[in-house]
C-alpha cells in the first residue's frame, strides 16, 4: 500500500510546528481526569502544545489557566499535583477562580498601580469540557465545539463508562525519544502484540489479540472513505480470554463491557482502554518535540461495591504489567525514531494497517495537507 506519511513527518521541526498549530492548539486535548482534582484547590500542572497549563478546582468547578504569572512569568503552581490557591511563589501575586489578579502586595506603594490598572490583569484561561471523568482542554482562542471532534455515540459511551471511574488511581509519566504519532500507530497495530510482546503480553493480559478483526479481512488497496475529524477517533473491541474472574473484580462495579477489552483511540493522542468492564487504563502521548514524547499513564478501577482494602495492590500490579509491555514498545519506538532520522526510504504498509492509514489520513486532513509529500 502507498504510505500517506513519510519519515520526515516524524522528524522535521517544520512538521512538528505545523501539527502543534493545526492539531494541538486547535483540538480538544485530554488533560486529566476528575479524580485528580476532587477537592477545592486541588490542582494539576502539565505542558500542552508547549504551553504550561494548570487545571484548578475552585469550589468543585475545574478550570484551566496558563501556569505563568503575569508579573515576571514565574511558575504559579510548581508541583505536578497539589492543593493550593493560584498564588505565585515568586512575589505572591494572587489570582481568583476566574484567573483575575486579586492581590499583589500588602503595601500598595510597592507596585504603585493606578486605580483600576490591575482589573484587566488576568491569567489566560482555556475552555474546559468534562465528559464522564475525562477533562478536556482547548488551547485555541476560538475553540471548535467538542461535538465536532467526538460524535454523540463516542461521547455517550465515554460518559457512561468513565462516569463509573473510582476516585482512587495510580499515575505516572514516561518520557521517550520517539514521535507521538508512532506511539498512536503502535496501539493501532494489533499485529505487533503477538510479535514484539510474545513473551510478556500473554503473562500479563488475558486478551485474545488473535481475535482482533483488524488483523484480518482488510482490502489490499487502501481507500480512505472519510478522513473527517469525528472519524479520526475509533473504537475497538476484543474478547477477553476465558479465565476465572480475578478476586477483586467482585468488589467493583461491572460495566456492560464485561468480557471485552474495549479501546477508544481518541484523536489525536489518547488510548483509553476499558478492561473486562472493571478497570480503566489511559495513555496519552503528549508531544514535547518531533523526537520526544511524554506519555501519561493512568490506571483506575470502576467504583467499589464492597470493602476493598487491597486496592493499591491491584492498581500497582496493573501499572507494572502495563509498564512491562510498554517498556518493549518504547525501546522499539526509540530505535525506530533513530532510523527515521537517517532513512531515505518510505514505509511499506500491508492490508491489516488500514487503521494506521486512517489515522494518517485524518492527521493530514487536520494539518491542511491532502498531499502527503507537499512539504517534503
Amino acid at each position, binding site marked *: 500500500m502507498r504510505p500517506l506519511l513519510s519519515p520526515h513527518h516524524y522528524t522535521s521541526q517544520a512538521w512538528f510546528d505545523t501539527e502543534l498549530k493545526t492539531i494541538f492548539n486547535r483540538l480538544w486535548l485530554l488533560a486529566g481526569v476528575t479524580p485528580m482534582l476532587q477537592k477545592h484547590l486541588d490542582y494539576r500542572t502539565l505542558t500542552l502544545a508547549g504551553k504550561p497549563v494548570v487545571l484548578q478546582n475552585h469550589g468543585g468547578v475545574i478550570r484551566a489557566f496558563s501556569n505563568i504569572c503575569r508579573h515576571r512569568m514565574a511558575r504559579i503552581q510548581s508541583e*505536578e499535583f*497539589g492543593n493550593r490557591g493560584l498564588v505565585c511563589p515568586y512575589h505572591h501575586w494572587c489570582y481568583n477562580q476566574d484567573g483575575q489578579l486579586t492581590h499583589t502586595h500588602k503595601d500598595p506603594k510597592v507596585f504603585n498601580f493606578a486605580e483600576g490598572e490591575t482589573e484587566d490583569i488576568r491569567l489566560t484561561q482555556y475552555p474546559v469540557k468534562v465528559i464522564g471523568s475525562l477533562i478536556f482542554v482547548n488551547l485555541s482562542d476560538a475553540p471548535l465545539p467538542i461535538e465536532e471532534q467526538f460524535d454523540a455515540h463516542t461521547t455517550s459511551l465515554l460518559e457512561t463508562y468513565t462516569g463509573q471511574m473510582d*476516585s482512587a*488511581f*495510580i*499515575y505516572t509519566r514516561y*518520557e521517550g525519544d520517539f514521535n507521538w504519532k508512532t506511539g498512536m500507530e503502535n496501539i493501532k497495530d494489533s499485529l505487533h502484540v503477538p510479535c514484539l510482546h510474545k513473551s510478556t503480553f500473554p503473562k500479563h493480559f488475558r486478551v485474545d489479540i488473535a481475535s482482533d478483526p483488524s488483523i484480518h479481512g482488510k482490502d489490499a488497496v487502501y481507500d480512505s472513505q472519510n478522513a473527517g475529524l469525528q472519524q479520526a477517533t475509533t473504537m475497538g473491541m476484543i474478547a477477553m480470554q476465558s479465565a476465572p474472574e480475578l478476586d477483586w473484580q467482585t468488589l467493583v462495579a461491572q460495566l456492560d463491557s464485561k468480557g471485552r477489552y474495549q479501546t477508544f483511540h481518541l484523536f489525536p493522542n489518547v488510548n483509553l482502554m476499558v478492561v473486562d468492564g472493571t478497570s480503566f487504563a489511559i495513555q496519552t502521548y503528549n508531544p514535547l518535540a518531533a523526537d520526544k514524547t511524554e506519555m501519561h499513564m493512568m490506571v483506575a478501577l470502576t467504583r467499589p461495591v464492597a470493602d476493598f482494602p*487491597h486496592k*493499591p495492590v491491584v492498581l500497582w500490579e496493573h501499572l507494572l504489567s502495563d509498564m512491562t509491555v510498554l*517498556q518493549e514498545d518504547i525501546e522499539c519506538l526509540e530505535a525506530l525514531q533513530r532510523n527515521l532520522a537517517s532513512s531515505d526510504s518510505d514505509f511499506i504498509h500491508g492490508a491489516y494497517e488500514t487503521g494506521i492509514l486512517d489515522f494518517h489520513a485524518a492527521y493530514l486532513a487536520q494539518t491542511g495537507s491532502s498531499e502527503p509529500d507537499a512539504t517534503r
Partner: protein
Amino acid sequence: MKKLLIFGESTSLARLNHEIERSALYDIVGIVVAKATTATRYGIPLYTLETLPAFDKQEVSAFIVGDEQHLNQQRLAAYMDVKRMGYAITSFCSSSASIANGLKLRENVFIDRDARVLAPANIGANTWIMQGAQIDADAKIGSSCWIGAQCVISAGATIGKNCTLGQGVVIGPGVVLPAWSTIHYPTTLTESPPNAVFLDARFRAPVYFFQK
C-alpha cells in the same frame, strides 16, 4: 523449648529456619505448605491444611512466613487465615538482632539478624525488619510493612501500614511516609510526601497513588 508451627514456604523460609535454629528458643513441630511434595524439609515434617494434625493450640504457637510480594498482602492474608484458625501467633527476633529492652513485639513481627531497634519504637503486627536495618528512637512503623536490609528509619519517622522498602532506603528524621508507599531502590527521603509514593527503577518519573 516452646513449640512452633510455621505456615508458608516463601524464599524467607530458609532464613527464618536458620535464625530459629540458632536461637534455640523454639522446637519447630511442622511447616504447613500448599502442596507437600516431600515428607520433610530441613528435617521438619511438612503438612498441608488437609494433613495438619490437631496440635494443642495452648502448646503450639504459629508464625507465618512470607515475603514482600503483592505489597505484603499475601503475607497479611495468610496471617489472617491462621489467626482465624485460633492459633496464638508469636513474633520472632534473631538472636543477633539488637533490640531495646522491654520492647514488645506484636504478632508475626520478624526482626532479622543484625537489625537494631532503639527505644522507644512502635512496630505494627506482621511487619518484617530485615537484616542490618536500623530503627531509631521514636520511630513508628505500621502493620504489614517490609523494611528491607540495611534500611534506616530515622528518629521520629513514621512509616504507614503496608509499606515496602527495598534494600538501603533511608527515611529521614521526622519524615511521615504514607501507607502503601513502595520504594524499590536505595534512596533517601528527607521530606514527607503528601501521598503514597511508588518508586521503582522501571519508571522514569514518580508514580503517584491517590486514594481520597
